[in-house]
């Protein structure tokens, strides 16, 4: 499975997908196709290695979820992206496809407040349960006080 073959297969299967790049191949899809894309990457493209999942806050344009998976045997890397849209912070969970998404999505929820639908155990992972807010949002100032500390 080369990057070119992967690009063709993705374009055939996901008509709305934007595909570019070679290492990694960057694939952007709508939120509805997110889980299908992950399943397709794992089962058809052989990307069984789960590298990481995170998000980017594009301010007025809303949040974008980013996930990287690899086919280690073929040397194929995919960077999967989906824009959630302004004001939306819900996204389908990838845990049914990749076990490694469990902790990564918990971290992403902790930092960005994204509710991953279908996650078996969505709670904060790095910050305390009583933390207020989600620090990696651009609207969260670095010097936000956290009583009794600051």
């Amino acid at each position, binding site marked *: 499975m080369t990057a070119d073959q992967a690009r063709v297969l993705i374009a055939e299967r996901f008509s709305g997908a934007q595909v570019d790049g070679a*290492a*990694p191949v960057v694939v952007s899809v709508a939120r509805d196709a997110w889980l299908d894309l992950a399943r397709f990457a794992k089962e058809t493209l052989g990307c*069984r*290695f*789960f*590298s*990481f999942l*995170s998000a*980017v*806050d594009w301010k007025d344009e809303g949040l974008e979820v*980013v996930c*990287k998976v690899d086919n*280690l045997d073929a*040397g194929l890397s995919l*960077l999967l992206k989906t824009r959630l849209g302004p004001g939306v912070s819900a996204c389908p969970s990838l*845990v*049914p*496809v*990749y*076990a*490694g998404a*469990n*902790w990564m999505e918990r*971290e992403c929820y902790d*930092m960005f407040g994204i509710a991953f639908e279908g996650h*078996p155990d969505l709670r*904060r*992972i*790095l*910050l*305390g349960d009583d933390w207020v807010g989600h*620090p*990696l949002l651009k609207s*969260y100032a*670095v010097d936000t006080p956290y009583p009794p500390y600051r």
Partner: protein
Amino acid sequence: MTIAAPRHVELDYTGSERLTMNMGPQHPSAHGVFRAILQLEGETVVGVDAVIGYLHRCHEKLAETLTYAQYPSIASKTDYVAAMTSEFAYVRAAEMIGKIEVPKRAQYLRVIAAELQRVASHLLWLGTWCLDMGGALGGGATIFLYCIREREMILDLFESLVGARLLYGFYQVGGVRYDLPAGWVDTCRQTVDVIDTRIDEYQRMLEDNPFFQVRTQGVGVISRELAQEVGIAGPLLRGSGVAFDIRRGEPYSSYEDFEFRVPVETSGDCFGRYKVRMAEFRESLTIVRQALDRLPDGPISSRPGLKSVAQTRIPKGEAYARVEGARGEVGCYLIADGSAKPYRMKWRGASFSNLAILPHIIPGHKVADVVAIMGSVDPVFGEVDR
């Protein structure tokens, strides 16, 4: 087949109740602050909830407030046992976006530092892991002190190179910060030779020891499939039969110039991970020797010396750079907006992903095995919590 749910084991347990036992966050075997809430039936663990985050400093937010010149020395505070690696990943991501060339000499110096760091990190792992498993292993603290003694030699080398023993700030965008001081190459060669002979000694101490074999063989088995799906990397992945090493798969910083093996074990247990790391010691030493032999002359950075912290500007773009650290894939996903600071930075800490395997493999083992399994994963909590 999906293996999404952490394992839960049902035993024919006739005892009166299931016991919840708290392990940590200050437990001597945790190598840092880690809390495991174990569900026990008798001596057997049937469920585990891992609690992390005690060392969280939000490096990702911090990186958005610091410039490309400032952050590399902070990056070393993520994985403080292998500080060189995290600096490496960060500067490489910035160089990929900015298409910044790195001079050949700097590339070799980066390789030497990274490989010595891997040896130092594996030494600390071996010592502490064997200490955790207790008195049966060559008198308990013996191997720990041996390993610390050898690690000290590498820290001395780093100290004469950088001036610091633990957190370096050696890598910078475009090259490295310091050239080798006089006599360093000879000292380095001697150190490498000494450590090479000592590794034989450790192996003789451990592998003939029936207690060591019983405590590691068949304990904490990770299947090839589960390993990939959870995303564990480095010696853990190779100990589960996946022959993947970033230095070989997508060579960076002139790794294609060096000859080395990628050790793989198929057993997937603690002993397999031990064997992989022991073989990696030797491969790292081989790479250091080759790099010292062929060290080219020339500049150590492609950029002018720093006069202000905001001097390095990276054009708009994004990149994911990964390097093969002592614990596996250390990745940095960087988004630059053209200013002197990144718009967004994501750390893929190898220890975070590696630790996520614990809820899948611990259930079904005895409490004593939890310690052996955790040590074989080699987590560094600065990198788990970032």
